[in-house]
């Protein structure tokens, strides 16, 4: 490795030796690809598609809708949290910090278990305050956990983005006599959003991946349907299908973000 190892993008001309490392690496991938194709050709079973195809699509829909709704709810919650993080008031700042730290410092899977099984213990109380219909459904419990979790991450993204907008923008707005809210929503936020676009897209990708956990609390999302299919057939290709669907979803999102970023930052390019 070290003899013909990769250079640090140095301007020095690369040595013209045959590159063993690259060939071995790509060879392994090609081998995987070939083995994968052979495996899939051998294992591929149209009866399985007929049997589980629709379940996978409905699972995909559950995953997508769960992530979409909790992302939007999380965005709403993140706004006051982000403002709290930036505020000089120690109570607002402290509680916002605690919120963010709690949700970022503990595993989502534990949060989901606490909400679903833990809160289920207090069903009498929730029934009394008329909230049991919400906590009764696994889908809502998953939604709540995901929304609060992403709110904590989104608050940090938002804060970083707002703080990245130069102070001069605020001052410029004020010198034009604009009220604070107008400056924030019309001047600062749009610029912050461009900075935040990529982190937000990454957050959605992380949520798509993390949402697989809700399968454990009886929600039939893509991963839930996969486990279901696997437990009926013990055929490993059921997991491979799920992997391909998740990868396709994430990659589509990543490319869409790249495209959107190029469009939105056209004015910044020279």
């Amino acid at each position, binding site marked *: 490795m070290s003899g013909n190892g990769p250079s640090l993008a140095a301007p020095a001309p690369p040595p013209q030796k045959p590159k063993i490392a690259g060939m071995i*690496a790509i060879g392994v991938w090609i081998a995987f690809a070939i083995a994968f194709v052979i495996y899939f050709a051998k294992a591929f079973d149209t009866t399985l598609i007929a049997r589980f195809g629709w379940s996978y699509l409905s699972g995909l829909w559950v995953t997508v809708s769960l992530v979409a709704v909790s992302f939007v709810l999380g965005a709403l919650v993140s706004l006051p949290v982000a403002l709290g993080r930036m505020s000089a008031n120690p109570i607002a700042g402290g509680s916002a910090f605690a919120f963010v730290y709690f949700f970022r410092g503990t595993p989502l899977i*534990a949060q989901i278990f606490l909400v679903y099984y833990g809160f289920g213990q207090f069903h009498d109380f929730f029934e009394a305050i008329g909230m049991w219909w919400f906590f009764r459904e696994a889908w809502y419990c998953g939604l709540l956990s995901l929304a609060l979790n992403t709110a904590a991450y989104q608050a940090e993204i938002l804060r970083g983005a707002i703080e990245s907008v130069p102070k001069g923008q605020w001052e410029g707005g004020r010198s034009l006599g604009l009220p604070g809210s107008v400056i924030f929503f019309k001047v600062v936020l749009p610029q912050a959003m461009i900075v935040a676009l990529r982190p937000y897209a990454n957050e959605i990708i992380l949520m798509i991946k993390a949402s697989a956990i809700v399968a454990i609390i009886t929600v039939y999302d893509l991963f839930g349907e996969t486990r279901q299919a696997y437990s009926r057939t013990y055929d*490993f290709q059921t997991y491979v299908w799920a992997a391909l669907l998740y990868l396709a979803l994430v990659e589509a999102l990543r490319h869409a973000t790249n495209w959107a970023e190029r469009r939105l930052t056209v004015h910044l390019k020279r």
Partner: protein
Amino acid sequence: MNESLTLLGFGSTGWGDELATGVVVTVTLSLATLPIGLCLGFFLSLAKQSDDRLLKLSADIFTTIFRGLPELLTLFLVYFGVNAGLKSLSQATGLPDIALSSFVSGMVALGVVFSAFASEVFLSAFRAIPHGQREGGMALGLGRTKVMLLVILPQLIKIALPGLGNLWMNLLKDTALVSVIGLADILRQAQIAARVSREPFLFFGTAIVLYLVLTILSSFVIGGIDRWTKRGEVAR
């Protein structure tokens, strides 16, 4: 309240000792995964900036796959898929059976996920180091390896530390997923305790507090390392 204390106590009536072993398992798994993830991530980042197109492409394929798959799915793919692969391989070659335990499966799965993300952190850290550093090292007559070890790496660690710190936190939290394939970590012990005692709120709440303690401890340690790497700057 007293009842809760008994349940959380040590000995045969309480779950304190089980939860304590869970903490040990969680910490051991995280610490065992870290070096794998760091080393693999480092080499991946080298491959990504290599002028060998094939090597770069290979590293990119790796990152795309393991950043895109849900960690839980990666874990299942390793636990069921790699194990099945190993089994048929040992049958074909006549080598003795090797089955990955849930601990090793967790180490492998979380290690590759960690390395996929870490490679990006290292890559941007590499880019933050000016070329002059490398050229300076060369000009002093140091070899490639020495330049890397003595000049580049120390700066790299300093720049990459915040990003790697975040990844460590993610790793610590992701170990909770390994409970799903049967590793007796904090979450699984809490789950078993919750089932038997029928006190899910108490035990999942305790689990969350334990994770919180671990992340707070980690941030102190990372903060300490961060100050240590920057000790030269303060003097200036």
